[in-house]
């Protein structure tokens, strides 16, 4: 299984431990990755506020590059996945629009035929490795851990662009994979809500309220950790958690893990190898709970 790997800006910037953990786990999953070094930022929905078509052209360029190599794209960021899925949906369901975009891409010698698949790492785990493929790689079932999933908006909505009609299990992909890793999945209403990151620069107070609301809710439901497939959610839920706790006068202290870190730990890797020491909310208490399993 070979993929054109689109790491996204944040896994190579503000959340380097995500990139690190993916690099550690992918060879052991039997995946082959060819990193797309010439691909651009997706626009993250922000560029699209200024000019949606510009965003679609930049994404079509990335899809055309993958199409040339004959590989499906693998993302590791919910936001990248969502923005690219939406752009691809617009391009592939509107032939005149695709033609107009191709006219612009033609100036760089590129054409997009509309055949590139764009899949998040989580979906690849679900659809390519499946339950058997994951379970057979687990060396340390994380049975002592109670973990709550946190999807982020862009891996849940809009469901049509994300292909939920054809692949309905994508809507609960995190829960399935987490259960295959042996841990107890904690369900809570906030798992598909917004982490508040898009509001951070515009309305910090509201953004921090969202951080506090979801993390406290997950804790109330008994979670030891929150697991996310989105580095932007991680930036807000981990990086801004202490500010959120201060603002809302609450004691939170809930570690936020990237899914590949959880996977790596269950596959027998060491916490440091997976970047678990690089979080702002310490993961130590949880690692202590797992005791000798990760010593």
């Amino acid at each position, binding site marked *: 299984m070979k993929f054109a790997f689109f790491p996204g800006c944040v896994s190579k910037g503000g959340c380097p431990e995500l*990139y690190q953990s993916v690099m550690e786990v992918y060879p052991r999953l039997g995946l082959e990755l060819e990193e797309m070094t*010439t691909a651009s930022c997706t626009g993250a929905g922000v560029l699209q506020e200024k000019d949606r078509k*510009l965003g679609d052209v930049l994404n079509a360029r990335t899809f055309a590059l993958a199409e040339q190599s004959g590989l499906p794209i693998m993302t590791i960021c919910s936001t990248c996945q969502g923005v690219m899925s939406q752009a691809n949906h617009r391009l592939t369901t509107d032939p005149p629009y695709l033609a107009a975009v191709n006219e612009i891409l033609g100036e760089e010698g590129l054409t997009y035929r509309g055949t590139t698949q764009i899949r998040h790492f989580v979906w690849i785990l679900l659809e390519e490795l499946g339950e058997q493929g994951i379970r057979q790689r687990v060396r340390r079932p994380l049975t002592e851990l109670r973990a709550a999933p946190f999807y982020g908006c862009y891996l849940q909505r809009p469901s049509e662009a994300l292909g939920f009609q054809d692949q309905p299990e994508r809507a609960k992909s995190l829960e399935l994979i987490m259960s295959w890793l042996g841990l107890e999945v904690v369900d809570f209403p906030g798992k598909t809500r917004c982490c508040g990151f*898009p509001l951070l620069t515009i309305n910090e107070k509201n953004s921090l309220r969202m951080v506090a609301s979801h993390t406290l809710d997950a804790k109330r439901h008994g979670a030891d950790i929150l697991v996310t497939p989105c580095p932007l959610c991680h930036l807000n839920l981990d990086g801004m958690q202490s500010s959120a706790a201060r603002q809302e006068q609450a004691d939170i202290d809930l570690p936020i893990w990237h899914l590949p870190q959880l996977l790596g730990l269950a596959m027998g890797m060491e916490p440091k190898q997976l970047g678990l020491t690089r979080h702002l909310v310490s993961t130590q208490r949880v690692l202590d709970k797992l005791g000798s399993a990760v010593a």
Partner: protein
Amino acid sequence: MITTFRIRRFNPETSPSMPYFQEYKLDTDRADTVLDALIHIRETLDESLTLRCSCRGAICGSCAMRINGHAALACKTKVQAMASERGIVQVEPMNNMPVIKDLVTDMAGFWEKVRQVQPWLQPAGQEPEAEYLASAESMNHLTGVMGCIMCGACVSDCAALEVDERFVGPAALAKAYRFVADPRDGAGRSRLLALNEPGGMWDCTRCMECIEVCPKGVGAMDRIMSLRGQGIQAEVPSTCGARHAEVFADLIYRKGRLDEPMLAVRTFGLRNLSRLLSLLPMVLRAFVRGKVPKTGPFHRAIPGLEKFRRLFQRMEERP
């Protein structure tokens, strides 16, 4: 199929007036909607169950409520599509608005916010001799947003309203777009100026809940993003949100990818030095934790940047 309806009940006249869930079992048919079932429950099992409905055809918007945690029109939602493996459907009143009784909410605040955006045409200039004319194309573009039935589903599931009730909300903003984008309206700039204020178009968190739950495909969030774009174009006073979008675009042009430290510095900059400095403790903690990529804090440009820039420029020349 026997279905269990788990309904959130609330009666302000009882004491203590606390909401609670009550379950009803009903034999449902393949064709039954949630509204059919609720009416059946009221008629045969519990006449005290209070709900609001009218057209039963997804036109009036009266029966919006939360079904399995998300807003929907009960008359448009099939029971069997919502029933869990154990045959349970959970029904609650809409969120982000006060509950009057059981599944009925008070929508006065909703209408107040719609009124706030002045939802009527305000033509400028001399009155024409005959009608105000608009091209078919411009009106076709507005068909989707004019299809809004004001059911409140988008407001119910709005994540920004959940944390700040002052936010004008997706329904009112979509309605505002309907007039800003109408070629017959002459108040576009003043509308955009009003929407540029706190609680306006920049307070949407782009979570797409409104897009997902809208029973009519209005696409409120997309309209809000268009309003932001029009605000930037109209050069309404620069807000953090507008600067964020402008700087974001410029950074992609310069490097092909995002440069987070520069994004923060240029978005806040000297205009809001205190806000920029408030991020310093978090940045320092990240640095101490080694949360810095191997290449250093600033991203390198993508290979082939010149070609990429030409594409970018071409787009700006020929939108």
